[in-house]
């Protein structure tokens, strides 16, 4: 598994867990999980993938990453 694919896979896996909690809880849940457990280079890579169209990301995950990216200082 090459890097963006693997990260997309991992992000979607997180999304799958939160799916049953409904959209309104899932989106912040996913964002918080990635914020807390992913190292900066992983976050940078997934944000770059998001900017490049975010192929393969589940809708909740895409939304969570978009909001996470906005909330984080540009440096990280």
């Amino acid at each position, binding site marked *: *598994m090459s*890097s963006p694919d*693997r990260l997309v896979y*991992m992000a979607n*896996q*997180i999304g*799958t*867990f939160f*799916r*049953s*909690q409904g959209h309104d809880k899932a989106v912040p849940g996913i964002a918080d*999980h990635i914020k*807390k*457990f*992913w*190292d*900066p*280079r*992983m976050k940078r890579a997934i944000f770059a993938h998001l900017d490049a169209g975010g192929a393969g990301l589940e809708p909740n995950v895409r939304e969570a990453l978009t909001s996470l990216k906005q909330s984080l200082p540009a440096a*990280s």
Partner: protein
Amino acid sequence: MSLIEEIDYGTPRSKSETMVTLTIDGNQVTVPEGTSIMRAAMDAGHQIPKLCATDMVDAFGSCRLCVVEIEGRAGTPASCTTPAMNGLVVHTQSERLKKLRKGVMELYISDHPLDCLTCGANGDCELQDMAGAVGLRDVRYGYEGENHVFAKSNGKINAAWMPKDESNPYFTYDPSKCIVCSRCVRACEEVQGTFALTISGRGFDSRVSPGMSESFLGSECVSCGACVQACPTATLTEKSVIEIGQPEHSVVTTCAYCGVGCAFKAEMRGEEVVRMVPYKDGKANRGHSCVKGRFAWGYTNHKERILNPMIRERIEDPWREVSWDEAFSFAAEKMRGIQKKYGRDAIGGITSSRCTNEETYLVQKLIRAGFGNNNVDTCARVCHSPTGYGLSQTFGTSAGTQDFDSVEDTDVAVIIGANPASAHPVFASRLKKRLRQGAKLIVIDPRRTEMVESPHVKALHLPLMPGTNVAVVTALAHVIVTEGLANEAFIRERCDWSEFEEWAAFVAQPKHSPEATAILTGIDPKDLREAARIYATGGNGAIYYGLGVTEHSQGSTTVIAIANLAMVTGNIGRPGVGVNPLRGQNNVQGSCDMGSFPHELPGYRHISGEAVRDQFEALWNVKLNPEPGLRIPNMFDAAIEGTFMGIYVQGEDILQSDPNTKHVVAALSAMECVIVHDLFLNETANYAHVFLPGSSFLEKDGTFTNAERRIQRVRKVMTPKNGMADWEVTIALAKAMGFEMNYNHPSEIMDEIAALTPTFTGVSYAKLDELGSVQWPCNEKAPEGTPVMHMDGFVRGKGKFIVTEYVATDERTGPRFPLLLTTGRILSQYNVGAQTRRTENVVWHAEDRLEIHPHDAEQRGVREGDWVRLTSRAGETTLRAEITDRVSPGVVYTTFHHPDTQANVITTDYSDWATNCPEYKVTAVQISPSNGPSDWQKSYDEQARHSRRIAPAEAAE
């Protein structure tokens, strides 16, 4: 220092709270009701002679040496079987008693060899002691009569004599010295629960018989050592005692194998270990042990142990032995060079769950403060990281809720994805003891483990398909909720009610019923419903689980589902219940507590918390990085990508223990500096540039924290053979990298941990010396520690129910890979086998075997013992087949103790969604007959041999 003598009270302690008072030899003694007169006398300091009694087993009353006189009662009752009662007046010595005892001893000695001077038990023989105690001066019967002592009697072969059984590698059985007291038989039954021993024959023909008069090695004996400990003579003796002689001093320390954390007395002669004897005051093991801790410590002085630091520029080069200083400056230069070239975050390290808390703490400190990043992880990543995540989300702490004593109050035990009989044997023995008293057992496991059926134990077994844990546990919840078995009072008081309602509505959906999920799980809905009812209504229900829960794509989800189950039934917050993760390694709990995870500082506090960081920054005098670092699998990915180039690995063999070996090889090969700090040239070291020799648990001071959060001392009994304890090595490496840490003794490290960690503020070496051990949290609120957590409410406030949707793993069976492989352990071997393979334990398990169901074997033309090729999407290996119905059709099973098997060549990259804990327990595979090792195994073996070369030392000029 002297030999620690533990008092043998003769019979077990009574738990009664009613007290009785009696008079023994003129002294008033008050003891709990149910205490024997023998024990009451010992309490008063009067030792009644005894042979067949010992306080690890129930009274038996066979030797007749412990007779006493009781005023108003006829005869001379045995004090071991006679309970103390109010008002009794007991005399332990009288003319009549003296005569009786002398007569008994005379008979014993008339059939016992008189080779005391050359006997292995000389100086530690209760028979000898008792002969002395009763004043035996001659044996009127002589020694020529019928006996078990001499091979020949009156020139003829003596049929009653039996030769020594030396089949067990660690102890001998000499029948000629046996007095048939049955202590060994009872220890095997009552303490260990294996029932391997019996007394065959009657009267003079009585013999201790392993199995059906087999050898010890050939019998069901699991070599736990309980019989050897119980034996009052030289009949069962450690071979090391026979070889070396009696120990002269002993030190209490903690076993370095599994997460049970047994306390042992290291019995020494100088700096040589004579034997390890389980310590009765050890609160985890209560005087019991298993074959690993009791006997398998020979690896500590195995010839393959590396004692000198070594370096090399390229992994193709042979190793070069160098001074410590040269090794440190070489390593420091490389690591700092990488940071210069690739950035501060391009290096990291792995703390060891085998090392002490203090050592683990130092490694994470070196990484966070010295390397300046948070790229620190530990092997808990690949075992119990989902436990940490799941329990902190639901309960608020990342640890088990009980102590092991709690099992004595359990009425229903549920074991999920664990095989304590193999992996946590001393806990298994304690559980089986409770089961024999009538507690019920439910086992949820793909395989019919040793726990499912053992003497006097029959579990309700739910043999699920690997990968369906969440479906099964959610179905249990479905039954409890829909059948009205939820403990509403508990939930209303302790948990968030609206979250509960949401969760209850979720699990109550028909799609979660046992009937609807049976097609996935393979479990008979009737059995599943019965299990749910038993757990919910059978009294104190306790869940014990292992890596069969965590090592899945949905590992964290299953932990959450288990926590839900405990909450919905109110099985939390008192003795006998709880959620109990059985930790794999000795210090997995401790390594997690000590801040080994990349996202949290010691005490499970997230690195992004400013207040917490401030505290550490002030004490460490550095600025900390607020961003979480890489986890082990992320490190490998980053290495292949070229952004993670150097690693310091303390006491873990990531190449053998992590999944998808080829991926790990690629990652390690990509790195520019791999520092391995270990006892042996392990598999990871084949890809290392620096080797720092490690020290064994016998060679250093520190603490381990076991699965019940119990912090116990590890005490140094010998000088480190490599010259430096591991904590000293880390300090020196840090210094070479320009980061100073100053400690003179591990106790100072613990003081720092206590100063920085709210759950450890009350912990100090002084307190551990005083109390023996404490369970965290240990602070102002709980100065003596916390045996049971969440007593008056959950740590997080309200217990949190979280919905757990079953999601099938992406690792699926199909036409190419139709079988599911799952993995586990065997009793005699431990983890990757680095230690146990270097002991005599190999007599029990010399290679990993593939268990396969007869149907699957027949379809493929595989016979017992055949070589088979095991193929998955990740790779292939070969090993020999064992045909058994312990596994269901469609499921195969193996252990991962031997590097030449390379079970992890087969396992995949899939991992837990929350923690990246690898999915070891489910791999789709195919089996086919084979002629021998695969190409990969051959080339791996060649590389390993090439890589382990050590260049001959250059002659000094």
